[in-house]
């Protein structure tokens, strides 16, 4: 199974059209293997990005360099997935 240890999901609230364009440029880059849960389209909508642990410094440096504000929604995706899996197993046991 693919694991997501240390993957973070960040929420970016772009404030200007220029920031949207910078986020779109970030989305086009393949090397960070970023997974855009919500895409950069307008300053009225947030942008959610799943950032693999290995790409975190690259992404935060990029955002900081362009003064793009962000916050962390999910600190370690794997923890949530482990909880989800444990809960599913518990439910399956109960149903049996």
């Amino acid at each position: 199974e693919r694991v997501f240890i240390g993957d973070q999901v960040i929420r970016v609230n772009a404030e200007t059209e220029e920031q949207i364009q910078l986020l779109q440029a970030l989305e086009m880059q393949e090397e960070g293997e970023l997974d855009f849960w919500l895409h950069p389209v307008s300053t009225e909508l947030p942008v959610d990005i799943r950032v693999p642990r290995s790409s975190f410094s690259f992404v935060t440096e990029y955002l900081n360099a362009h003064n793009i504000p962000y916050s962390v929604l999910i600190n370690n995706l794997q923890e949530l997935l482990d909880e989800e899996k444990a809960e599913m197993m518990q439910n399956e046991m109960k149903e049996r």
Partner: protein
Amino acid sequence: SSRSFNFGAYHRLETIYSWMDTLVAQYPNLVSKQEIGRSYENRPMYVLKFSTGGNKRPAIWIDTGIHSREWVSPATGLWTANKIATDYGKDTSLTSLLNTMDIYMLLLTNPDGYAYTHSKDRMWRKTRSENPGSRCRGVDPNRNWDAGFAGPGASKNPCSDSYHGPSAHSEIEVKNVVNLIKSHGNFKSFISIHAYSQLLMYPYGYSCKNVAHQPELDSVGRAAVQKLTSLYGTQYKVGSICKIIYQASGGSIDWSYDVGIKYSFAFELRDTGRYGFILPANQILPTATETWLALKHIMEYVRDHPY
């Protein structure tokens, strides 16, 4: 039995398919299960048909789970299917609806992707078809419909999560739905349920032009959302796909609208806790119950406005 099933939990594909059988067994005069075809990896695709009789009566289509990682979508579909079965004969409005119309529900629109999210990659979104000449698999099944296919807002890169595929309806999962809708010929509403970000949308996505019925669809959507919001205060935006998210071509409700199904809508369900695709299971029931209010409003409107 269906009564002891835990609707407040996420389930594997096999459990969901097995539950469908219990629902059919409990309500044989209302619910039937039809196989509409097989997926790329040969999994059966089942629709639940809610009907009180007659052949090819005016019908409402509801699909959930076209994007496999959006788990709350099929979970909401299960609860909804059960609600329709249990409320028939008790809820006057739903009963009158089912006395004149049929409801079709496809709970796992992308069964291969759903199974894959349970076994290999929880974040998988696409189908699992192989792309010749590429190391990447899968097509975004909501960019694969014959509606502005391969236009803006879809990727030609097989490694992209929004890859439109080699041709319109290339994905067997999409083609199976298209075949059913076309051969039936009397669908009046087509509702596709996604997650997350709290939106109720109508066509178009492939174009930012208003559809001919924009005022009516907007008004129906706003009234539906008002009901949804009345339960827990969940805030939704209403509008065309292009105007409230982004231009996206090859989407299912654009196709359904263009083949003449006027009341075509897509939901993006809630994420009030900001969990995205990992919405905790304890949010399933609140999500389903609030969504039901909006769904019911749309279905009643469709019943009362024949065309």
